[in-house]
């Protein structure tokens, strides 16, 4: 990146510094080679992974660790697909037993049609998992009160959605996301709903600490190119936020000096 930009504070979550404010998922890619190229193009150093049964009937190896080097990317296991606090706790423990780290993207789904989070179950699971020493990054609604409670529960990051998972609808509620950022001390990472680069940029312009996305890259016609676009959009949005935008006006103001009388 350009050396002319003034310094930003580092992106630190749970005491660990990350070089990129973009976190990407590893699901839904057409093939593993494209996934790895896209992840590299995104410039991220943290990727999410899911925990699932080994498919014993399949001859093809589908484990992600055959394609992604855990030395190259910090692995953030998720509890995607869990619908109860108990399920999420179980999957969190399984993920930790894989032996990489004790970090977790906690996600408890409350409704199958919208995939919106069950915030009560998320809070319940967060309290248990923080007590067990997990570093919990909690996926939640763009609801300030839930965000504050997740922070109180000891989560290392709160991750409000931009819009429903996989919807690509972009940032639907900038005001609430800003309210969460203003009131929480832990890092705020907007997770889910970003559809294209302008969404990522607009999200970062709200002042949040990072963005997490998967489908926006994986489902693009050219995922590698979109990953590069997202990388730049996140940087641009962050810089614009730090630069402080001009005030909006309802009237035009000329940029050039007036002509002489």
């Amino acid at each position, binding site marked *: 990146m350009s050396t002319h930009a003034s310094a930003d504070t580092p992106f630190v979550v749970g005491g660990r510094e990350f070089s990129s404010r973009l976190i990407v*998922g*590893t*699901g*839904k*890619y057409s093939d593993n080679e494209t*996934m790895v190229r896209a992840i590299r193009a995104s410039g991220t150093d943290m990727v*999410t*992974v*899911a*925990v*699932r*049964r*080994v498919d*014993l009937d399949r001859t093809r190896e*589908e*484990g*992600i*660790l*055959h394609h992604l080097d855990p030395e190259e990317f910090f*692995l953030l*296991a*998720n509890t*995607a697909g869990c619908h109860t606090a108990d399920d999420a706790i*179980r999957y969190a*423990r*399984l*993920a930790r*037993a*894989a*032996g990489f780290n004790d970090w977790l993207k906690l996600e408890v789904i409350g409704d199958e049609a919208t995939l919106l989070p069950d915030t009560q179950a998320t809070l319940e699971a967060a309290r248990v998992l923080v007590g067990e020493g997990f570093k919990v990054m909690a996926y939640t609604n763009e609801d300030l009160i839930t965000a504050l409670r997740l922070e109180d529960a000891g989560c290392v990051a709160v991750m409000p959605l931009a819009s429903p*998972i*996989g919807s690509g609808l972009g940032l639907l509620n900038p005001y609430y996301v800003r309210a969460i950022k203003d009131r929480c001390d832990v890092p705020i990472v907007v997770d*889910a709903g970003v559809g294209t680069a302008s969404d990522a940029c607009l999200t970062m312009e709200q002042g949040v600490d990072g963005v*997490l*996305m*998967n*489908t926006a890259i994986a489902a693009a016609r050219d995922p590698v190119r979109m990953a590069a676009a997202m990388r730049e959009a996140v940087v641009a949005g962050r810089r614009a936020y730090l630069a402080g935008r001009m005030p909006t006006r309802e009237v035009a103001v000329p940029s050039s000096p007036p002509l002489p009388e």
Partner: protein
Amino acid sequence: MDGKVTIRLNGKEREVAADITVSDLLDELGLVPGMVVVERNREILARDSYAAVRLSEGDQLELVHFVGGG
């Protein structure tokens, strides 16, 4: 007795040699121990116990690993 027991492996019944160890089962399935997590009767097994833990009739075994996800 024909030296076989039936366990439930990832939700499906499967006959395995009586007293087979978890290590031997993973080997039979062609799985690398460092790449999977094993849950037996809802309890996660420590990797260093795979060679010692022997399976019994009716054991429920879950083998999970990391896959792509968001």
